[in-house]
């Protein structure tokens, strides 16, 4: 994705936002200029701390999911026997909306960060497992045989074939998970905390009725997601150079 395209898309979005705000003409939808003004003001006023709390939670949730899901996905995708045993289980568990477990998770893990991170983990784990498993299972058998003929056993196959082959799928899974992770972050920060962009948005929108400040929080949350998207793109260009050669 080119920077110019992102800039143009942002410009179109701002124009549509401004026109909608003018048409609606209610305090609940302020225009982008007013929101930008408040956003700059709120930068001096605690918004950065909320941003850092949210960033930490979403990063921890995603990092834990990747660390746990990638080995599981590789193991299941790389072994026909494990695939036969665990895939039906994953198919049963994957579609269950994990958000409904928020009260249960809070009951067991308390109201702190751990519960919030655990809920994100529950949702992202299955998404990443499925993508990585499919990538590992779809590797050409000849590639595996070729490596086995070079002396590679199971451990070397994982190190030299399955892991690097699955990197693009891991990054795709991450990219797909960012939207979900940020949405889940908002839900988990609605209760039992005084820090985080979810709390900030909800508090300003529902309690203080300060809509420009609420939108400043929405902008901050969007920037959080956008920054994560760009980070994954950067990692892909760094780790998967072969995908970008002509």
């Amino acid at each position, binding site marked *: 994705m080119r920077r110019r395209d992102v800039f143009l898309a942002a410009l179109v979005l701002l124009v549509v936002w401004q026109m909608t705000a003018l048409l609606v003409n209610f305090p609940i939808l302020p225009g982008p200029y007013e929101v930008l003004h408040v956003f700059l003001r709120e930068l001096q006023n605690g918004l950065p701390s909320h941003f850092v709390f949210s960033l930490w939670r979403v990063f921890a949730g995603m990092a834990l999911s990747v660390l746990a899901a990638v080995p599981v996905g590789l193991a299941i995708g790389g072994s026909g026997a494990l695939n036969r045993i665990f895939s039906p289980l994953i198919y049963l568990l994957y579609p269950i909306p994990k958000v409904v477990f928020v009260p249960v998770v809070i009951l067991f893990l308390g109201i702190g960060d751990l519960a919030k991170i655990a809920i994100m983990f529950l949702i992202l784990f299955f998404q990443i497992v499925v993508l990585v498993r499919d990538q590992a299972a779809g590797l*050409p058998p000849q590639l595996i*045989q070729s490596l086995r003929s070079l002396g590679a*056993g199971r451990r070397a196959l994982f190190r030299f074939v399955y892991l690097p082959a699955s990197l693009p799928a891991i990054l795709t899974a991450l990219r797909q998970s960012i939207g979900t992770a940020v949405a889940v972050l908002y839900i988990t920060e609605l209760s039992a905390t005084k820090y985080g962009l979810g709390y900030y948005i909800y508090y300003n929108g529902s309690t203080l009725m300060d809509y420009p400040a609420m939108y400043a929080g929405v902008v901050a949350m969007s920037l959080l997601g956008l920054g994560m998207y760009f980070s994954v793109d950067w990692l892909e260009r760094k780790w998967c*150079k*072969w995908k970008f050669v002509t």
Partner: protein
Amino acid sequence: MIDLEHVTFAHPHTPPLFENFSLTISRGETWAILGPSGCGKTTLLYLLAGLRQPDSGRIAIEGERLTRPRPRTGLILQDYGLLPWATVQANVELGLRVREFYGEDGKHAPMDFQPGNNVVDWLDRLGIAEVADKFPSQISGGQRQRAAIARTLALEPDLLLMDEPFSSLDAITRGDLQNLTLRLCREQKLTLVIVTHAIEEATGLGKKILLLSRASNQATRIFENPDAGQDGYRASSAHHELCDLLWKEMHYETA
């Protein structure tokens, strides 16, 4: 060097490809395995590579029963088996890195394996040094095949197994690589077993040609071709006669 004794092998739910099949290949020989599609050429190569196990019978290389891939056997497959995410140099180094990963355990690497790096030398000898930093998708089919050969020879094998390695190359590149393969086999004193469905390739490379049939292979049908690889042999009448004979045999098989 290679002994197949009364080998029987069948893929699940299909008639056996080999039944009580025996074959002996001596050290330093060049063999071509020829036959129509589905006759078990590649399966036989996988059996020799230790990637498949016979249902019954015994396969031994250098007197040792083959139960898994052997560190001194090199295998080059039809699509070269190069890792698309690794550069040419990293692909050529791959076998050495796998050996370093395990150390000299006698299973994955020979007991006398000395970690060293002769990769640059092989890149030079195979004429692919200038594309060492490129990825496989950036180079030609001939260069990919040279990289696969370099990767295998960097491991200093004594047995080279090739599965239709030149089938997707143009005629000139194919001829160049066939000559290169024969030269390297002579220099490195390798035993060569190459699988092909092309009669001219079999007669050009194999001093002995094993013809397989679609029906279950029991008896070995071996054609002697002692002049393979010599200058002018391909234009000789003896070569044409052998090609005719093999063509008739294969035609009879497929008719």
